[in-house]
């Protein structure tokens, strides 16, 4: 379960969330909507009927009455396929009609100049129908609309799209079109989970990210996952977050740390408390990461690392701090 609510507003305004089960979606979107309503924002939901019901049930658990919020003009709920039908013209999208429909909706939500946050899943409907190219085109339209007026947008996709054969490039496009990707998945205490976690994050990173990014992300995911499985002997939850400036991978396991030298370590390559962790595996993470830390929790810990975009954008490894590879002696 991710925490997209924390990501809305500020510099981040277009977040994608790949969800597992529907109740996971309801939890994270419900929280995102509740945060918006509580902070006085206009909130727009463009979703299928079952999802709208699930979100409203989740809002009710938060003490928020969707009917009243609607009546009072704070919450706007629209059927995803209904709205899609207004600008889907045969095999193409009518950009003008999309803009008119979306602007009207967001304009009403922005009454009085309040901030607006939107949850929408029309892109997922298009993707589900096999119209992957249209889904990406629609993502692009949302992004362009975001440059004309400010609003937070959370897009939901079922995470089954990550496993579909032949869509890695398209998933990469979707992730690149969002200013942030936030996602989370749990893995059992098995050695095979290390590989599964690696595939999970490289899938989210997408094919467009480049070799260096995929390489460093795979290394960090592998070593953090191995740390949880081998040393904590624990199942773990991996959180992936990517925005314009940074990729962050966090692993939460269920075994507390007893000794910690410091909460956070700058990437000096020295002075990190290896002795409490895996030793070499985390030292590799420490040397790749711009920041990393072990955050102790009463019932476990979170080990996280951030990879700066400057490194991810490097055309190929090794990075600037590394010597050139040796050549064959002849």
């Amino acid at each position, binding site marked *: 379960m991710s925490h997209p609510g924390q990501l809305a507003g500020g510099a981040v305004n277009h977040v994608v969330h790949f969800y597992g089960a529907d109740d996971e979606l309801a939890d994270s979107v419900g929280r995102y909507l509740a945060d918006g309503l509580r902070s006085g924002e206009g909130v727009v939901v463009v979703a299928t009927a079952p999802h709208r019901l699930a979100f409203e049930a989740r809002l009710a658990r938060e003490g928020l009455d969707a009917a009243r919020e609607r009546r009072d003009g704070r919450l706007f709920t629209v059927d995803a396929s209904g709205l899609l039908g207004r600008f889907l013209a045969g095999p193409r999208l009518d950009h003008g009609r999309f803009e008119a429909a979306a602007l009207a909706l967001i304009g009403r939500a922005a009454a009085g100049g309040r901030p607006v946050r939107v949850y929408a899943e029309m892109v997922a409907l298009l993707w589900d129908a096999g119209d992957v190219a249209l889904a990406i085109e629609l993502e692009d339209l949302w992004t362009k609309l975001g440059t004309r007026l400010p609003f937070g947008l959370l897009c939901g996709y079922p995470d089954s799209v990550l496993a579909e054969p032949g869509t890695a490039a398209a998933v990469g496009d979707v992730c690149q079109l969002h200013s942030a990707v936030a996602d989370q998945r749990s893995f059992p205490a*098995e050695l*095979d989970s*290390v*590989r599964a976690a*690696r595939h999970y994050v490289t899938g989210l990173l997408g094919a467009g990210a480049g070799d260096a990014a995929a390489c460093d992300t795979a290394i960090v995911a592998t070593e953090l996952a191995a740390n949880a499985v*081998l040393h904590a002997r624990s199942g773990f939850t991996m959180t992936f977050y990517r925005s314009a400036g940074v990729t962050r991978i966090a692993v939460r396991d269920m075994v507390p740390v007893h000794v910690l030298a410091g909460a956070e370590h700058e990437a000096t390559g020295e002075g990190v408390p290896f002795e409490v962790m895996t030793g070499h595996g985390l030292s*590799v993470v420490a040397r790749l990461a711009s920041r990393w830390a072990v955050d102790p929790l009463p019932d476990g810990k979170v080990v996280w690392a951030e990879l700066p975009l400057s490194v991810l954008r490097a055309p190929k490894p090794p990075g600037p701090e590394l010597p050139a590879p040796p050549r064959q002696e002849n």
Partner: protein
Amino acid sequence: MSVTGEQPAIPATGHPYQFTADGPGRWRLSGEVDVAVSDQFATSLARAVGAAGAAAAGADGYAISMDELRFIDLSGLRALAAAATTAGVRVELHGVPAVFWRYWYLAGFSEAVTSVYPVS
């Protein structure tokens, strides 16, 4: 990396890598090597290098082709370095993937292991 001590083994079922002979003193490593299979990989390496024997090595020593290696982690590199050190002959690595270089330098193998030569 081995799981030691009295604790029960952590389950692992995958066989995501292949290590196959590719002529005398030559092997091909493909797929993905990480902690789930590095013990098994170390055993394969030890058997292969031991069975080949130093006499079977060509003038350039042993060679391992990694063209189709998609991922290798620190535990895999350790197994490789250990086998090369035991064999006592030069081990050339061909088609080395980016992830290998990254680990190789970050973990200090480039200074510590002198019998392994990543050549491409």
